[in-house]
């Protein structure tokens, strides 16, 4: 049983945590792609920016959460989401819109977004410094230890408070997005525009509004992902940047331009990562007697070492692109 708890802690919970973060990030990337048809490389840094806003706000109002009984960072998250959405719309107005107006090829926008990445990273480093900082300023990070009611179980299932918030917020965000896209006229207009922008405009849909709405949603989601990630570990200026690869892998695995695919892709990549670095020898321990010796002798039976974790999304990406280039769900259109 202890082995099972170990598995839950190291795979189920850890996989869900990275899966949720990747999912929220990938939804933003995929929405931007489906509306504007380019890969937005600055997404990781928009996530960092969101977390940075939370850090600033929490530093300014460290007691904000006390009244609600939740961490201040969480109470101030909506404000940070709004600021990040504003930043996203501003970046679009300042950098991407002029490029689009000139009718450039998507690759130019991609390069442009790389420039924005460097700029954002530089700015955040300038103001936040390069070291890690905790988003828990006045409050304590709760850790829940759930002992399983079985005999002989010593190790508890460990979940931290930010992880629980992460699961809940991911669920709410995904359901909310689904309702928005399928029920509201604005969501339908987004679907229409991702399908055929010229026709959408000729049908009376204001494409500028749709672009702005897309940035607001992507910016808001980026702030959520960045903040929850920083709550779980610590805030660092390059933390989210290094998630860019798994996030893009998730978006592509799910079928680019397909928000539900991005959610699924996020969890596929998240679980693949944790399963790949999981030490399987622990799970095999109870069956030691019935297994061949070569299998049980090694103390470490992980597929890849932890330091090679970053390779896993690459591997998935290659497999998916070879085996099913359009992703799990057929991509391109919301």
């Amino acid at each position: 049983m202890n082995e099972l708890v170990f598995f839950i802690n190291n795979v189920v919970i850890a996989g869900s945590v990275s899966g949720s973060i990747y999912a929220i990030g990938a939804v933003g990337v995929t929405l931007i792609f489906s509306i504007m048809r380019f890969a937005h490389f600055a997404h990781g840094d928009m996530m960092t920016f969101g977390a940075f806003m939370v850090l600033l706000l929490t530093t300014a109002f460290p007691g904000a959460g006390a009244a609600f009984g939740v961490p201040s960072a969480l109470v101030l998250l909506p404000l940070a989401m709004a600021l990040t959405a504003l930043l996203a719309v501003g970046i679009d107005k300042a950098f991407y819109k002029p490029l689009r107006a000139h009718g450039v090829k998507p690759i130019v926008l991609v390069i442009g977004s790389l420039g924005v990445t460097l700029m954002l990273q530089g700015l955040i480093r300038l103001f936040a410094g390069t070291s890690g900082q905790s988003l828990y300023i006045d409050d304590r990070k709760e850790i829940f230890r759930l002992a399983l009611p079985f005999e002989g179980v010593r190790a508890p299932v460990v979940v931290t408070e930010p992880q629980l918030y992460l699961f809940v917020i991911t669920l709410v965000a995904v359901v909310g997005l689904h309702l928005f896209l399928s029920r509201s006229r604005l969501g339908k207009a987004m679907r229409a525009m991702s399908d055929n922008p010229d026709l959408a405009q000729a049908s009376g849909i204001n494409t500028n509004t749709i672009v702005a709405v897309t940035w607001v949603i992507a910016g808001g989601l980026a702030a959520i992902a960045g903040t929850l990630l920083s709550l779980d570990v610590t805030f660092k200026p390059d933390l989210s940047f290094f998630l860019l690869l798994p996030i893009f892998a998730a978006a592509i695995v799910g079928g680019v331009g397909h928000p539900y695919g991005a959610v699924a892709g996020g969890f596929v990549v998240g679980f693949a990562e944790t399963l790949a670095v999981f030490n399987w020898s622990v799970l095999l321990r109870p069956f030691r007697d019935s297994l061949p010796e070569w299998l049980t002798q090694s103390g470490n039976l992980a597929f890849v070492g932890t330091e090679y974790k970053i390779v896993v999304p690459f591997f998935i990406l290659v497999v998916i692109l070879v085996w099913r280039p359009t992703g799990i769900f057929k991509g391109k259109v919301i």
Partner: protein
Amino acid sequence: MAAIIDVQHVHKAFGGLRVINDCSIQVEQGSITGLIGPNGAGKSTLFNIIAGALPLDSGRVLLDGEEITNRPANELFHKGLLRTFQIAHEFSQMTALENLMMVPPAQAGESLVNAWFKPALVRMQETEVRRRALEVIDFIGLHHVRNELAGNLSGGQKKLLELGRTMMTDARVVLLDEIAAGVNRTLLGDLVTNIERLNREMGYTFLVIEHDMDMIARLCDPVIVLAQGSVMVEGSIEEIQNDPQVIEAYFGAAS
């Protein structure tokens, strides 16, 4: 009759290529005006300028006396100026019926507040829009494929769907860009009948780009001939067909 579309001295160049050269045309209210001309005469460019898809270099475009120069297509849609595309456009991932239901403006569901807090109102309007879409899809004879994804329809059916789109809202002017191209003869007859009915019964004004001379002859009066970016001749189809200038432009020197 008053001109509902008034194009005044429009110029448009792509790089060094002057495509529209001091072009002025008027489309009378309630008419079906044809726009013809040899390839490269600037018909589609002029169309795109009127429809707000291309910025013009100089000149003015008026819709019913109101200046609409360089206004975006979505604004023109709400003013009652609709267009179809030379290569049929459709929302490929939606059914034929949903394609039509996308069109009507100002539905309650457009506002998020309504979408989430007044579902009854939204549902009532959706029912109304659906009823109209079903009527339209009967009218254009696509009832049997209404639940197919529009991307899977044939080229001709997509053209019919384009015409159907213009019927979902109360249009004043409809720009038809080669609606007959790639449509078989039987369907074409339906199309012409439908356009005439819309013109007669619902008072739509049409501006039609067409290469099919039979269709122009059946449908359009007057006809404007465009050549090298400006108006060459304007008149009834008989006048056009007997004009030596037009014959020369189309068939080379008539000796």
